[in-house]
């Protein structure tokens, strides 16, 4: 019997060829950890190519999982354990591995041919180049094939089960139950009993291998993390967004029409929503991004919740239609799952560089509401909120998520009942709201609600309210075409005032010391890394405050006061300082940017280091010549 060590947290990275099933292995390991109540955060990282040439560096796909007995916050800065299914996976990931950490490699793949594909002159398993790490060279492929000797399957099929063998081994190492994966496999391979049995056998064999092999002498356990009472599930950002949209439609008692065009990393929103027809969801896979948003807007005109989902390049194509929705003053929800840009950029990597596009990327003064989700689970509430604002204020709302949130996952505390969620009921116009020159009751489409400035939403099929809307400037009230200079000035300001008047919660500041001079401000998916970085800095005595923006248009009413109450504001962003530019312009506060655009989330150490540097400058310990970084 091995000895069991209790540890606080572990970061495991599974890496292999795109076809090795590493995403699935990581996914299953995540679910099996989640059900134990361990907190976790995940980061899949894969190439844009579906199957790059086998065994090459561009073909390496990985899945990183951080699980902890406390709030995990991020997928982890660096792996404690790397599972490398071939030389390419080892080479691509070794640079991220701290010395002393563990490497498990599939030694069967370290053939001359595979080594030369990635430029290893000799096998790193045979020389001393890996001395600094604990290396377990396990012939994962041949053991798996051997374990399946009695199965009437081809060698290829047997080899394919090596990811389940690996999962079994890791499950033993980290004392994970296998029941969830058994159930998963039984569903997945229900129609292929041979394959099912082979996978179950490989999984068990991997577990047994850990138990019986002396090489793996230690088992690790991570205790459940303290969490608010409730029922939890693990969820990715894209699933949470899709469920949020369906839930909002349910609470609004309106059909939801999604117009979408496939684009990475947003396509899973289309996939997920297309399965939710029972929840009043209609999905239209349009011929292009423009038609996608067009069909959504057409549906909104008809009284549905029109939604379109995309990523940066698609948002660019939708600009003109979003502008039309601004002019029509109809609800429209646009979800931009941001990825690296410009142009095609880095389709499978994350970035926050569409903020200015979302805010301003249209002709004319064209204000929209902008929300940014801050974690995978938060995508649910952010989507509900996007629908609420769109229908309440009759405006396009752009919800920004990103590749990290979309594919990453974390435990989500489920609502115990649907009544916990806001009531999003909508009232359509049903009566004339004005009188014409002769005193007859008529309907004027641009008569506004005094409080929200929202215009009446009169849907086709309502007798007596027939009206025409369009992209040409309209007279406020009557909605008739108007080229009048004063009216245009009034309408431009009114559309802006409507967005500015959207009620959003005040910004909350986390400042346990109460006397911090430095505020770290973030928005969107940097929530986890910033919180983890601040936690690290505080652990070494740093006095630092933290706040995170979710509403970007309009900004919280107290934001100016918050910014001005600190000696220094540090704003990390995965772009070149887009929010900093906005806040500097709006509040005349000398925001300090910390930026990186590597296609990956910030690490906690990076944020903590930036905090320390700025604190040193504030304390006068170091000169501060550069202004903004």
């Amino acid at each position, binding site marked *: 019997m091995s000895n069991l060590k209790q540890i606080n947290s572990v970061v495991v990275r599974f890496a292999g060829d795109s076809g090795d099933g590493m995403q699935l292995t990581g996914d299953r390991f995540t679910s099996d950890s*989640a*059900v134990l109540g361990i907190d976790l955060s995940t980061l899949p990282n894969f190439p844009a190519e579906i199957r790059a040439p086998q065994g090459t560096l561009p073909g390496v796909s990985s899945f990183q999982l951080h699980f902890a007995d406390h709030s995990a916050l991020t997928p982890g800065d660096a792996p404690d354990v790397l599972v490398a299914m071939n030389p390419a996976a080892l080479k691509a990931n070794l640079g991220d591995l701290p010395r002393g950490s563990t490497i498990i490699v599939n030694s069967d793949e370290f053939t001359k041919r595979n080594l030369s594909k990635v430029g290893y002159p000799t096998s790193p398993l045979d020389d001393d180049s890996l001395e600094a790490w604990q290396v377990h060279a396990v012939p994962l492929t041949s053991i798996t094939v051997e374990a399946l000797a009695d199965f009437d399957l081809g060698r290829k099929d047997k080899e394919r089960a090596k990811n389940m063998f690996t999962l079994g081994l890791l499950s033993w190492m980290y004392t994970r139950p296998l029941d969830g994966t058994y159930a998963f496999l039984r569903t997945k391979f229900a129609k292929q009993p041979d394959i099912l049995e082979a996978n179950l056998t490989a999984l068990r064999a991997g577990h047994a291998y850990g138990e019986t092999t002396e090489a793996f002498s230690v088992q690790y356990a991570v205790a459940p993390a303290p969490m608010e009472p409730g*029922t939890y599930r693990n969820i990715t950002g894209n699933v949470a967004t899709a469920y949020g949209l*369906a839930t909002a439609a349910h609470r609004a008692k309106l059909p939801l029409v999604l*117009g979408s065009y496939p684009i990475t990393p947003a396509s899973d929103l289309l996939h997920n929503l297309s399965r939710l027809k029972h929840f009043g969801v209609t999905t239209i896979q*349009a011929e292009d991004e423009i038609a996608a948003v067009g069909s959504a807007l057409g549906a909104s005109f008809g009284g549905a919740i029109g939604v379109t989902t995309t990523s940066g390049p698609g948002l660019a194509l939708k600009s003109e239609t979003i502008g039309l929705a601004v002019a029509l003053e109809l609800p429209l929800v646009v979800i931009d799952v941001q990825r690296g840009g410009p142009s095609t950029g880095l389709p499978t990597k994350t970035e926050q560089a569409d903020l200015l596009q979302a805010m301003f990327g249209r002709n004319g003064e064209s204000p929209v509401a902008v929300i940014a989700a801050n974690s995978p689970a938060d995508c649910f509430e952010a989507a509900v909120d996007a629908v609420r604002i769109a229908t309440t204020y009759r405006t396009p709302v752009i919800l920004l998520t990103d590749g990290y949130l979309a594919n990453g996952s974390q435990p989500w505390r489920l609502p115990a009942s649907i009544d916990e969620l806001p009531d999003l009921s909508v009232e359509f116009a049903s009566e004339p709201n004005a009188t014409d020159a002769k005193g007859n009751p008529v309907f004027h489409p641009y008569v506004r609600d005094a409080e929200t400035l929202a215009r009446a939403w009169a849907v086709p*099929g309502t*007798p007596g309210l027939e009206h025409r809307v369009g992209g040409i400037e309209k007279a406020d009230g009557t909605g008739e075409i108007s080229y009048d200079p004063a009216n245009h000035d009034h309408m431009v300001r009114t559309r802006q005032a409507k967005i500015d008047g959207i009620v959003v919660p005040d910004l909350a500041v986390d400042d346990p010391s109460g006397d911090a001079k430095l505020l770290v401000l973030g928005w969107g998916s940097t929530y986890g890394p910033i919180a983890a970085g601040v936690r690290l800095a505080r652990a070494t005595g740093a006095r630092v405050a933290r706040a995170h923006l979710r509403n970007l248009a309009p900004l919280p009413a107290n934001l100016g006061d918050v910014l001005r109450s600190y000696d220094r504001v540090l704003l990390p962003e995965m772009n070149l300082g887009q929010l900093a530019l906005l806040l500097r312009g709006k509040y005349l506060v000398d925001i300090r940017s910390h930026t990186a655009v590597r296609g990956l989330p910030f690490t906690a150490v990076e944020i903590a280091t930036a905090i320390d540097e700025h604190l040193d400058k504030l304390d006068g310990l170091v000169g501060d010549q550069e202004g903004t970084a």
Partner: protein
Amino acid sequence: MSTIDLGMPTSGIAGVPLLAHGEQQTKRDFTSDQEVRWCPGCGDYIILNAVQSFLPELGLRRENIVFISGIGCSSRFPYYLDTYGMHSIHGRAPAIATGLATSRPDLSVWVVTGDGDALSIGGNHLIHALRRNVNLKILLFNNKIYGLTKGQYSPTSEVGAVTKSTPFGSVDQPFNPISLALGAEASFVARTIDSDRKHLTDVLRAAAQHRGSALVEIYQNCPIFNDGAFDVLKDAQESVARVLRLVDGEPVRAGEGDDARVVIRTDAGELELVPEPGADPARVVVHDASAPNPAAAFAMSRFDGPDMTTVPMGIFRNVARPTYDDGVRAQVAAASPDGPATDDELLALLHGGDTWSVTG
């Protein structure tokens, strides 16, 4: 064809609420209070008039009719009709209308567009709306010129057209909108002309009844930038000689008496226009817009000669096939046999997958 055996509606206006028994509408009911602002003599006036006069005969509730347009002279059309309407953006009306028609089976949805709007900037949306067979009626006003931007050549302008942007003549090969629509799998394709009120109305009537996308190309005169483009089709004598009338069950012919020409099918299976006197009656083609194979309709569309020496007019194709919007709604309905999801069902969805509980 036998492809509509799905319990799906077969009329273009099925599902749209009708006027109560005894209620009547007139052209006035469809006339909005907006001043019409097309140039004097514009063909659009005649089309507007014909549409306003025709709509009452459908007997639909006015509030259940929607006109959606793009950008261009023709796209001002919705403002002048007292129905629901949207003047959208350039080229995108079919996409917007697709979203509306898919989510609202109780509406009769019409798209008004022009040759630049539908065939240039919006070409992609047009072909995909036709391919999907969304229940939309698309009125394509073809004046072979850009009017609202003041006189540039359009995708239907002939090679050599001298316009503001082609002072040395256009070198672009134009589209044949009928051939294009047929190539895009359209289930209803017709051509008519602004000056022939009766023909225009007959075509609109057939289009309205068609379940699915109906493309109606309407030759329309622009008196400012391309005046007289269709004069030869408006001259009584010339039109008789040039227009090939497409009438179901009748031979396809142009001209009269000794000058009459008729469409025959050759040994090679091709359609050919030959002098009628002496033509083999066994080879004379009898028009059938409902023919499942679009080959004959396509061949007919190719009789469009240069300089309009021959112009087929009428309904080229009118076949029943499943519509996109009916199909989408059928899937949603099939997924919800007991009506909309309950709170419990939604909660079960959210709680799906592996869950665990944390107790306080």
